[in-house]
């Protein structure tokens, strides 16, 4: 066991962070509200670092690293609030090298279960970044399906909650071509979920940093507000939530790497493939990571807004963008509510308990 970032991991994060600072600063990316304003060159530069091909084989231009390394990169992307179909790019790189290389865009959506729409009619589909995407990939129980984005009749969502995650509604998505089976679908749901959680954990980390920096310089009543115990404790709690979320995401990604392709469904009486430790079950670990990362991101952003006071309530300050992104990501590939259920269903009867 060595469960901490090694020098390679730290260097990887530093490289991505540097690129984000140079090419994807938030002052700029907050204006990427549609395909027209999206800076494809900056996105390509990010892809050039291997951000979306961490887990791909070298032959496909990948770095042959694990999901854990991808998770470290995505924590940075979450902290830098990089917009765009990040998780989709990392998944679709399995099938389309151009997407992994940042030369094309894709969006991945899960099929809305029957009866999940208003009036229980099924649908509508909610599709992010439809204008940017060349293809829409649909994940369902049967597998993965590809449709040209141009074939989808979408209605743009007015005034999107997260300004840089434009959304479309569509009554239907054409069936398209099957490009993967149930195993790929399951793999994408898990990998997609943990990468979205990594974005959330990074998000949670950054809002504490921003709020801490603000608390150190903003004065009220003749002292910096960071000297008030109430503010100190709010920030200490937020810091702790972010640390715990990061650890949970790392553990989930490592569990997925360790499990390789032998991912069970995590239901029923626990996970049993020779591991002794039930927390090594990637289904459980990934679900648990979502519970903690979604909570940490939204609560920390809320704390940061509160610490910023009136400034936090202005559009100009960036904190609200972290909160809004967190609200979108919480429902990516699973929801915290569904995830908590998944963890509950993974619990086995304790060995020592009387029958």
């Amino acid at each position, binding site marked *: 066991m060595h469960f901490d970032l090694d020098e390679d991991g730290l260097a990887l994060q530093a490289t991505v962070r540097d690129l984000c600072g140079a090419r994807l600063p938030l002052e700029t990316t907050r204006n990427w509200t549609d395909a027209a304003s999206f800076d494809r060159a900056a996105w390509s530069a990010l892809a050039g670092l291997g951000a979306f091909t961490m887990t791909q084989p070298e032959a496909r231009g990948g770095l042959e690293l694990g999901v854990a390394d991808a998770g470290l990169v995505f924590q940075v992307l979450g902290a830098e609030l990089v917009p765009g179909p990040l998780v989709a790019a990392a998944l679709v790189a399995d099938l389309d090298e151009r997407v992994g290389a940042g030369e094309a865009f894709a969006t991945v959506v899960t099929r809305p*279960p029957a009866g999940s729409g*208003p009036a*229980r009619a099924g649908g509508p589909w909610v599709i992010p970044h439809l204008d940017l995407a060349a293809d829409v990939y649909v*994940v369902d129980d049967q597998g993965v399906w590809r449709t040209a984005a141009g074939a989808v009749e979408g209605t743009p*969502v007015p005034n999107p909650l997260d300004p840089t995650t434009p959304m479309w509604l569509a009554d239907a998505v054409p069936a398209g071509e099957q490009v993967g089976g149930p195993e790929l679908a*399951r793999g994408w749901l898990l990998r997609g979920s943990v990468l979205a959680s990594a974005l959330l954990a990074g998000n949670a980390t950054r809002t504490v940093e921003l709020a801490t920096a603000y608390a150190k310089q903003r004065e009220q009543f003749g002292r910096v507000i960071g000297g008030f115990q109430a503010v100190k404790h709010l920030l200490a709690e937020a810091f702790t939530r972010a640390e715990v979320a990061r650890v949970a995401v790392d553990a989930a990604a490592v569990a997925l790497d360790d499990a390789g392709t032998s991912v069970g469904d995590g239901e029923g009486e626990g996970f049993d493939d020779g591991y002794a430790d039930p927390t090594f079950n990637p289904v459980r670990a990934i679900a648990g990571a979502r519970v903690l990362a979604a909570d940490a991101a939204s609560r920390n952003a809320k704390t940061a807004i509160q610490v910023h*006071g009136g400034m*936090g309530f202005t*559009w100009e300050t960036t904190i609200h963008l972290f909160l809004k992104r967190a609200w979108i990501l919480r429902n990516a590939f699973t929801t915290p509510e569904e995830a908590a259920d998944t963890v509950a269903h993974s619990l086995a009867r304790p060995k020592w308990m009387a029958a």
Partner: protein
Amino acid sequence: MRLRDSESDARFRKEVRAWLAENLPVLGPRPAYGDWPAKKAYDQRWQRMLFDAGYAGIDWPAAYGGRGATASEQLIFLAESAAAGAPDLGVHFVGQLHAGPTLIAEATDEQRDFHLPRILRGESIWCQGFSEPGAGSDLASLRTRAVRDGDHYVVTGSKIWTSYGFAADYCELLVRTDPDAGKHRGISWLIMPMDTPGIDVRPLRTIQGESEFAEMFLDEVRVPVENLVGRENDGWRVAMVTFSFERGTSLVRELLTAMTMVEELATLAKTLGHGQYHSGPRAGQSRTAWDDDAIRREIGQVAAELDAMWALTRRNVTRAAGGGGVPPSGGSAFKLTYSEAIHHFGEVAMKVLERYAISLDALPLGAGAGLPVGRHIIEHLHAFAISIGAGTSQIQKNILAERVLGLPRER
């Protein structure tokens, strides 16, 4: 203790309800969010209708043109208005709840005679010029200067959170008239006409999007000395009088609207499918958000919290009627708990709306008005306006700990 309507209360309620049923349709549809000129005209039209019907300034003394009604009647009016979906004060908020009552309490007869009727008729709109970028919770550290020059004050500085600044005819303005006096001692309360040269009002975008707030930059603005309310350098006390009207009851209409929004959320939950559930025992099952025990129960909890705020309002109003206004225990407790309830409301709303929590507007689904997701999210964001504005939750806790529980003051 009584809550039930007395006979005269019941009569009043019936009368108000009938009047609303008759007149709301006449008012016409609410303007789109962010269309401020239309909003101003709409609010003014409604205020004039209220005035003509005798419902302007329901709790203002009759001597100043109000209805001089009881606190019960005021609450009944607000409750019936919220239930019917009638407009709230809108652009008249500052004039009706801040400036008007302050003028009644502190102004000269000339000031009252000029301003109060205009406020009641909806003819003059007021904005607030208290907060500054550097003076938030610590309002008394404000730095906007007013230098006496003959029979004028010359005012220079900047203000923020100037609500309805875009529409205002007058501003209740706090300025520093004596920079050498103690922090709280050199402040004055002025009436500033908004058409005076040197005022630059810029709309302020908030995390909710377009907003009724503005920033206001003042460059050598000449305000007549006769526009001083109260004495020079006594403005902090006057401002505290202003706040005594705000604390405790200014959020009542908002609370009542929130109570109807919980009803709306419950109704939405009953029609919205819920859960992605691609795997696990729920996979493929169809159910509504309302079918989910956790969500339904949490909606009930939020409703219980808001109901209790409504009961607390009745207690605060009863106490205030006994003289001395709303006590700090009641006012701070209200603000603190109300802001938590709205944050809680917002969190539940995110769970109910789930995959549809993606817009600050209504979603264009099917025919008709669309799915009203945006306003629940905006209400969620608005919770910060409550937990930050007019004394952060942290300040409210200090007030309660020190003034009510008698714990040591901050060092």
